[in-house]
């Protein structure tokens, strides 16, 4: 077990390192003058100089790169307008355009991203699994076909179109919901819910469709399994047959996929946040790209990759815990 975790960890670090390297390389090798890019609009020659100094842009690529990586582990100090700015480890850089530590910017925005991600995740998991199980039980009948059509449509509509459509219907035309804003749960739970409902639904719809189909297929397959037949032949209560012998094997793989999907979303649901104007990490990504704020772009890319890789690893380990065959290893 330790060996598995160990090798996974190593692999994870390697991938993270490579992602960092590639991202850094792309920005600093592809852009003509990184300092100007990073400086953004309203640039002044002084600021450009500062950037050059702080990031050591006159130095060779590798020196810069290790400086960045070093900053991730030990922190860094930037000199901005004569004053020293401490950037504690992991130092994700300094945004010269907005005069903030990138790390701070991200931390500020994480709660919103997490809210959107988790809320949508709950919705799509419950919705998808329930719909999938129902479809499997009523295979071939009306309900099944209805869900099949619904999921097809849901998978086909781009989220931003759906977002605009739902907004138009529920906010503008019907006025049932407020225009989504980042309300804190602690301030007003009711409003919080009403405000986040649209982003949740928009984000969840696509995933729910996939999960419905997946669950349906898994359940149908599992019901054909011989051990289900054995369970029935033993005269077990239908409830027990369902829970232990049908659902458990069918739903287990879904849980693992779920983990990976949620992990991916923690890096920010770029489009959903942008459309609704919610200041999460995703919107930060989109904004910083428009503004060409390279340090921020680097940081969010890294963060996203980090979450995905961690998510992958967690899921792998989870599978080891869940599936006895993997856990104990097949033996004669």
């Amino acid at each position, binding site marked *: 077990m330790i060996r598995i975790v160990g090798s996974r960890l190593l692999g994870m670090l390697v991938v993270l390192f490579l992602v960092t390297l590639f991202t850094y390389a792309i920005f600093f090798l592809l852009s003509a003058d990184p300092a100007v890019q990073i400086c953004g609009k309203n640039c002044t020659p002084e600021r450009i100089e500062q950037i050059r100094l702080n990031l050591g842009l006159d130095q060779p690529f590798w020196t810069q790169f290790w400086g960045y990586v070093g900053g991730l582990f030990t922190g860094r100090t930037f000199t901005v307008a004569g004053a020293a700015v401490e950037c504690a480890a992991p130092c994700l850089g300094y945004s010269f355009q907005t005069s903030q530590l990138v790390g701070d910017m991200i931390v500020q925005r994480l709660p919103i991203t997490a809210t959107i991600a988790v809320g949508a995740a709950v919705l799509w998991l419950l919705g998808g699994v329930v719909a999938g199980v129902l479809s499997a039980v009523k295979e071939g009948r009306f309900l099944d076909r209805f869900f099949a059509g619904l999921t097809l449509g849901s998978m086909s509509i781009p989220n931003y179109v759906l977002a605009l459509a739902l907004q138009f219907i529920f906010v503008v035309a019907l006025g049932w919901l407020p225009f989504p804003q980042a309300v804190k749960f602690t301030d007003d739970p009711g409003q919080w819910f009403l405000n986040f409902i649209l982003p949740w639904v928009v984000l969840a719809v696509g995933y729910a469709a996939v999960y419905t189909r997946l669950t349906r297929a898994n359940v149908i397959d599992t019901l054909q399994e011989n*051990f289900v037949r*054995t*369970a*029935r032949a033993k*005269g077990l209560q239908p409830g*027990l047959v369902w829970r232990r012998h049908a659902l458990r094997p069918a739903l287990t793989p879904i849980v693992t996929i779920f983990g990976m999907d949620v992990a991916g979303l923690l890096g920010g649901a770029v489009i959903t946040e942008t459309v609704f104007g919610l200041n999460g990490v995703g919107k930060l990504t989109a904004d910083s790209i428009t503004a060409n704020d390279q340090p921020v772009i680097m940081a969010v890319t890294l963060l996203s990759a980090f979450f995905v890789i961690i998510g992958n690893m967690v899921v792998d380990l989870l599978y080891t815990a869940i599936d006895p065959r993997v856990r104990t290893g097949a033996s004669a």
Partner: protein
Amino acid sequence: MSESTSTPGAVSGEGSGPLLSVRDLTVSFRTAQGPTSVVKNLEFDVPRGGALGIVGESGSGKSMTSLAILGLLPKGGTATGSVRFDGAELIGMSEREKRRVRGDRIAMIFQDPLSSLNPYYKVGTQIAEAYLSHRSGVSRKQARTVAIEAMERVHIRDAARRVDHYPHQFSGGMRQRIMIAMALSMEPDLIIADEPTTALDVTVQAQILDLLDEIRTETGAGLILITHDLAVVSEVTDQIVVMRAGETVERGAVEQVFSDPQADYTRRLLDAVPRIDDAIGVLRTTAITVPDNGRSAR
């Protein structure tokens, strides 16, 4: 088809009528081409403590027979006729009643023990399941003891420890023993074994057959052994039914049928089995055709 539903009580064990009495059993499926019968007008008895073999090739309907008895036919299948178990009519019985019979009074052992066991649960759990389900007011501890005992009964060593193992941790032969233990744990009156040895090595086959025989003698349970292997049948059973494409080709006592087969098909089946006292020469092969019977449409 009678509708009488005397609830299955304990086996009287006094020789009052056969344990299982099948009359005019027909199993049909709805196919794209219309209804097809995979079992036609089957008739046999299993006396208390007796052992019946149902022999036939794949597609002969032998497995369907067992599923029909238990009411476990796949979607689209219906069974008509009469299946009397200890005086109670199983055909037409309510699903709830049937559940009470299944696993408790009639137990079934399937062909492939690896896929017939749930890989996610411990072996002990799966053996104890039936016990917990059918007997009210029993504790998990008691059920666990029953499971361990059942495993010991089928000669699995170190049962107290292995009861917590998972199916994949056992060998093929062991897994089949576990299936038998599962069947045994409820002390059924009738055991139906569907190709119990087909997926196993030849050496292990003999052990399993011996085990089945031993259990039958010890517990007085009836046994229906379904197989395509004539050698297997001759070991364990008293009576034999030969099936082909859903129809009964021949029926009778095993020695009788083997030494003096009436039907041509039976004769050809017997001929196809190599015998150790055959003159050394070419192995007689015979083309045994099985009519389509709409199988390819399923």
